[in-house]
């Protein structure tokens, strides 16, 4: 499981004429197999654009995105996106959502795989519920379970917990980390929550405002599970916040 991501000199612009904005300029980086990278940066800096390029929903104007050495031309089941606004189909039950994501699995295995994933995210017993009958935190877990059912090599997460309250957010995050130790897909998480990035990632990319560039790469070596009060993590948080233009006095 897992795949290598290589971004090579990628440029992306939006709009035309005077309204044209440059989202990404000459961006390059590599993410190793099974690595967890968090991308933090100011709002509207092109983080979401970057994820869409990686997942194949958009194509770069220049440069290339390589997955295991091959350019990505369209979205595929290898790289699943967990979108900001959530995309669990509201007209289907939890079971039906997972079933649709399973694709060509033989019938005799489907039931068991679904049961296993529903259990994994702690939603056993909710298989026949519709999304509008679930809480925000539960819905986000369905989103994760559905993504994992497809057995992706890559998981792209765009502010996946943004709509949740702080406590639920921490719960779902911990759960995600626990689940990911099982499959170990390569993960890219876009977030504006520096603490969240330091909690989950092996490396944190700090982005500049538009056009986005990787201003700094922060290695997070702390063992897991991480206590955010560890002095080295507190130090890294200050480093990143300073990089983002906030003085430590503002946040302390």
């Amino acid at each position, binding site marked *: 499981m897992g795949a290598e991501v290589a971004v090579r000199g990628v440029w992306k612009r939006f709009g035309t004429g005077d309204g044209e904005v440059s989202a990404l300029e000459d961006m390059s980086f590599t993410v190793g197999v099974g690595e967890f990278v968090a991308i933090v940066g100011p709002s509207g800096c092109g983080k979401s654009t970057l994820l869409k390029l990686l997942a194949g929903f958009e194509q770069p104007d220049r440069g290339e995105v390589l997955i295991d050495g091959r350019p990505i031309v369209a979205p595929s089941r290898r790289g699943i996106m967990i979108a900001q606004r959530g995309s669990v189909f509201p*007209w289907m039950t939890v079971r039906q959502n997972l079933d649709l994501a399973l694709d060509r699995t033989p019938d005799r295995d489907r039931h068991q795989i679904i049961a296993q994933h529903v259990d994994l995210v702690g939603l056993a017993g909710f298989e026949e519920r*519709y999304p509008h009958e679930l809480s925000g935190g539960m819905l986000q877990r369905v989103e994760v379970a559905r993504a994992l059912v497809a057995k992706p090599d890559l998981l792209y997460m765009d502010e996946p917990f943004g709509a949740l309250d702080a406590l639920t957010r921490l719960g779902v995050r911990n759960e995600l980390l626990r689940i990911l130790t099982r499959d170990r897909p390569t993960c890219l998480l876009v977030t504006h929550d520096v603490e969240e990035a330091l909690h989950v990632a092996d490396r944190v990319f700090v982005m500049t405002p538009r056009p986005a560039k990787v201003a700094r790469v922060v290695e997070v070596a702390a063992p897991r599970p991480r206590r955010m009060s560890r002095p080295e993590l507190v130090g890294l948080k200050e480093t990143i916040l300073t990089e983002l233009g906030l003085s430590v006095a503002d946040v302390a």
Partner: protein
Amino acid sequence: MTRLLPVGVCLGLTALWWLAASGSPIFPTPGAVLLGIASLVKDGTLLRHVTASLYRVTYGYGIALLLALPLGILMGWSRTAFTAFNPVVQMLRPISPIAWIPLAILWFGVGDLSPMFLVFLASFFPMVLATSSGVQLVEREYLWAAQNFGVTGLKLFTHVIIPGALPTIITGMRVGLGVAWLVVVAAEMVAINSGLGFLIMDSRNAGMRYDLVVAGMVMIGVIGLLLDLVMRRLENLKEVRWRYARGR
């Protein structure tokens, strides 16, 4: 308490009507209308006319639905199809079905086919438009997710696009049936000898029985209400609750 409110309003208005109509030569009282309905029920004419009207609506509306759904889905999905068909639909839509009566009689004669055709015209366009905008309104996130999980072809339509558009389609079906019911009555007032519209015209022409005229009107209202209640039940299906639940 609030549940009794509509009943109260109804009774109040009926009382007002009774007061105003008492002794009036041009306005039948609620009592006269009730007796009129009773007599129509007793001799079986009411059932015959109601059946005739519902029969025409069933076919006209049914065929409209069968054609409006595929055309609406096509227009909602394909930019080209939308560009091609939308101007025609938008131009035909504001023509009242009543204006088609002369042509309907010319083409289909004075039988059941004419009112069926008019009912078809009345309900077809609102349902085409609702379906196409329903398909266009399916959120991009859902289409992306479908693409991401490799859902394509027919399965994309049956599992994502149509269910995503269904709440809007059902609203269109409700509007369509409402208009169908309005139009069948109007169509039956011309060149046909059955149905609730005919009952109303006939009651006047055959002896100024305004009690029966109003009895016919009341029945149209009651059946229209029942039809709408049936359609509203569709909005309570679990597969579409998500859309309507948001605003409540």
